[in-house]
């Protein structure tokens, strides 16, 4: 049994050493925060974006995200909370959330520019 445990550990270390880092292209293209960014960008590029209230924008984005992400996806859980967070802090909160999920260099220009305009208006 001890031999089995040591073998498992050695295999795990070898696989980890041979694997690309978290910031490699393969992992940053298809993570759930990139899906969130993609859907957010599509929303901001839609013709009606400027006509909608910030709550209506959030509602539309939520509909899109609930089809694109699993309810258990970190990005979806983060979105559900951050949409009601302080508008001026939202981009930093999304970045914190992505970082905590292992995506340290996650960026999203659309969220950076319009993140404060999508979600609760904090009246």
């Amino acid at each position, binding site marked *: 049994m001890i031999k089995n445990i040591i073998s498992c550990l050695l295999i795990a270390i070898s696989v980890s050493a041979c694997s690309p880092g978290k910031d490699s292209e393969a992992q940053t293209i298809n993570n759930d925060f990139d899906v969130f960014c993609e859907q957010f960008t599509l929303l901001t590029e839609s013709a009606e974006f400027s006509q909608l209230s910030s709550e209506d924008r*959030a509602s539309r984005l939520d509909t899109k995200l609930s089809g694109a992400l699993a309810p258990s996806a970190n990005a979806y859980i983060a979105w*559900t909370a951050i949409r009601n967070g*302080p508008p001026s802090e939202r981009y930093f909160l999304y970045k914190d959330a992505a970082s905590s999920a292992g995506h340290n260099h996650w960026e999203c220009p659309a969220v950076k520019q319009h993140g404060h305009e999508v979600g609760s208006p904090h009246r």
Partner: protein
Amino acid sequence: MGDAVATIHGNKNVIQTTGGTIASIGLEQSGKKIAGVLVTPATWTLNYVADGSKPSAVDLGIWASGFLSAPAAIVTGFLKAAVDDDINRKLALIQAKEPSKSARFIKACYNFGAAPPAINAMTIANSGGTAWITSVGLWVYITDARDRLVADYVPKEFVTLYRPCKPYRALSTGGFDWEVIRK
């Protein structure tokens, strides 16, 4: 003696995981595999009686995986136990700085849900609770004696704090507007 007790308590999960594993192996080798996989839940029961701690979703997953692959579950369980002990040590440091009547209700965000602690902290604020991170780098939150989130607790020490905004108003989405306070 006091130091020994503190050391045992601080490493409770590693000690129990190791003990549970040895007991499981012993029972499995004697042909009682079902009894073996039941050892770990028994230690959780002891923890709950001793200090009210409950198994997290990750604990449950590791226990369930024991039915499928004992060696992998043992290795994963041992690493998870080491992480739990590190969290317990940091949690004890945070609790020591808060009033004793509140300290026992402060818990690690790590165990609130399956998401990373930073995201769990945001979920807690959105759900009407207070969550904060201190200089030791652990996200925590507080409940009342009935395990309900507390909206307006002000910790003695924090670096960043998330909490719902006053006046408390449930939004149509089910959450609350919440704020970020940084020191």
